[in-house]
């Protein structure tokens, strides 16, 4: 579904991503883990078109993404939930959701209403808060809104950039449950996480990114057992020593 080959990208002279190749198949949850500064967010920004790649190929359902402006990419069914929620603070919850449905607006108000109902079913708290300004929501609610807003475009691939950052454990659990539910409903998820253990716990496959390179990849179970991964990202060193 998503295929990246020999991708290089960066900011000015600074090369952040070096020769990255990866793929995401339909129906999978794929996670990218790595330390701060490894290039995870840069990678998602490049896929979403917010940052132009230097070299390499990115195709989504066979279509070249690099030649498209960022605002065209959600129309193909590839949508990103940005880091730090980025909700439209001065607008209401429902307005945020309607904006998320921008690309399906032409399909009529029935489709839009159906999608709204779906989000309210997925996150009942958003229904309660529908008239409230998004900026006044709690961090967890804003994250739910950001995910729901992305889902409004009826994507086939959802890319999430660190959805668990700064949230209480119980809320994180809820959000991961939603990610699992999305896969059951046939959606594909590309998940970036600093919480490697939780991410590998729900993902099918994972890539470990270090200083802009993929250093390890494989099924989640293998990565969870991998000693290097355990030492660097799962904090097992003390237990084993």
């Amino acid at each position, binding site marked *: 579904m998503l295929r990246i080959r020999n991708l290089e990208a960066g900011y000015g002279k600074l090369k952040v991503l070096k020769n990255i190749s990866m793929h995401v198949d339909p129906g999978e949850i794929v996670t990218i883990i790595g330390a701060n500064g490894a290039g995870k967010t840069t990678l998602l920004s490049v896929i979403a078109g917010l940052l132009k790649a230097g070299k390499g190929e990115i195709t989504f359902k066979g279509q070249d993404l690099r030649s498209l402006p960022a605002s065209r990419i*959600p129309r193909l069914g590839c949508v990103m939930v940005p880091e730090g929620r980025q909700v439209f603070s001065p*607008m209401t919850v429902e307005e945020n959701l309607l904006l998320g449905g921008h690309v399906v607006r032409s399909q009529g108000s029935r489709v839009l209403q159906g999608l709204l109902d779906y989000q309210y079913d997925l996150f009942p708290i958003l229904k309660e808060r529908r008239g409230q300004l998004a900026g006044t929501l709690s961090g967890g609610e804003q994250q739910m809104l950001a995910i729901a807003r992305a889902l409004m475009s009826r994507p086939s691939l959802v890319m999430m950039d660190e959805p668990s950052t700064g949230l209480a454990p119980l809320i994180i659990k809820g959000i991961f449950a939603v990610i699992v539910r999305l896969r059951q409903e046939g959606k594909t998820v590309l998940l970036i996480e600093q919480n490697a253990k939780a991410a590998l716990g729900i993902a099918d496959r994972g890539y470990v990114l270090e200083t802009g390179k993929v250093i390890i990849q494989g099924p989640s179970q293998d990565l969870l057992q991998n000693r290097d991964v355990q030492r660097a990202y799962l904090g097992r060193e003390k237990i084993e020593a």
Partner: protein
Amino acid sequence: MTIELFIQYLFAGITYGSIYAIVAIGFNIIYNTTGIINFAQGEFVMLGGMISISLLDFMPLACAIILAVAITMVIGAFIEIVFIRWLAAPSVLRMIIITIGISILIREAALYIWGEGVRSLPYFTGSAITAVGIFGARISPQVLWVVGACGLTVLALSFFFKATPVGREMRACAANRKAAILCGINTGNMVTFSFVLSAGIGALAGCMMSPITYTQYDSGTALAIKGFTVAILGGLGNVGGAVAAGLLLGVVEAFSVSVVPLAFQDVISIAILLIILFIRPNGLFASKEAAGLRAF
């Protein structure tokens, strides 16, 4: 001061105030979607007046005004596409210089096309000496036209921004540009649209005020300064604040005439601008949140 004189001054203040408010709203619309101040905003007002005056030879007044507004909107779109759109990530200073350049360009073009002469549209109803009596004060019907048109413009705009998808998308673009792109909104088109919109309402204000204030090739500059003062006073980007601040400045200016000579009227408004910039740079009505969100 007699009650009649008071009302006379008050209406003069409200008239000018609503024009300032409209110019300031033009500033705000573009500021909200781009984060820049379009210093050519006053020129849109002048163009609206001048074009409608020229068109009046060929068609009735209402058609001339509508067509003038439409032409100015096209000019607004043209300016954005030619001068602004291709800039990838321009600095604020660069944008300011570009818009000042555009304003000089338009002004000189207007001088070339229409000459130095002072022109005006005829009064929409009655003539220069027709007056309506309100509490003993004598009010020109044109004043009612100006106030009514400005009021309707504000109402129409607030409906547009609240209740239409395109208005919602423009607000989204203002609130969080990156998130708007991620929703699939073409923010470039929203910027063009904001230029079209503010050119249109600027031109409408230019037509409405022309019978009272007259129109000259350089009449946009002074208005832009007043409109800018009002936009700052009301808090940049705040449409409601612009209306309140516009009326406030208009009324203060009108009443200042009874204290200081007429020639010092502009001194009052510039002094207000300076004082506000010193003590409340976020404007009288700006919320803390808005102040924190944008840096200009």
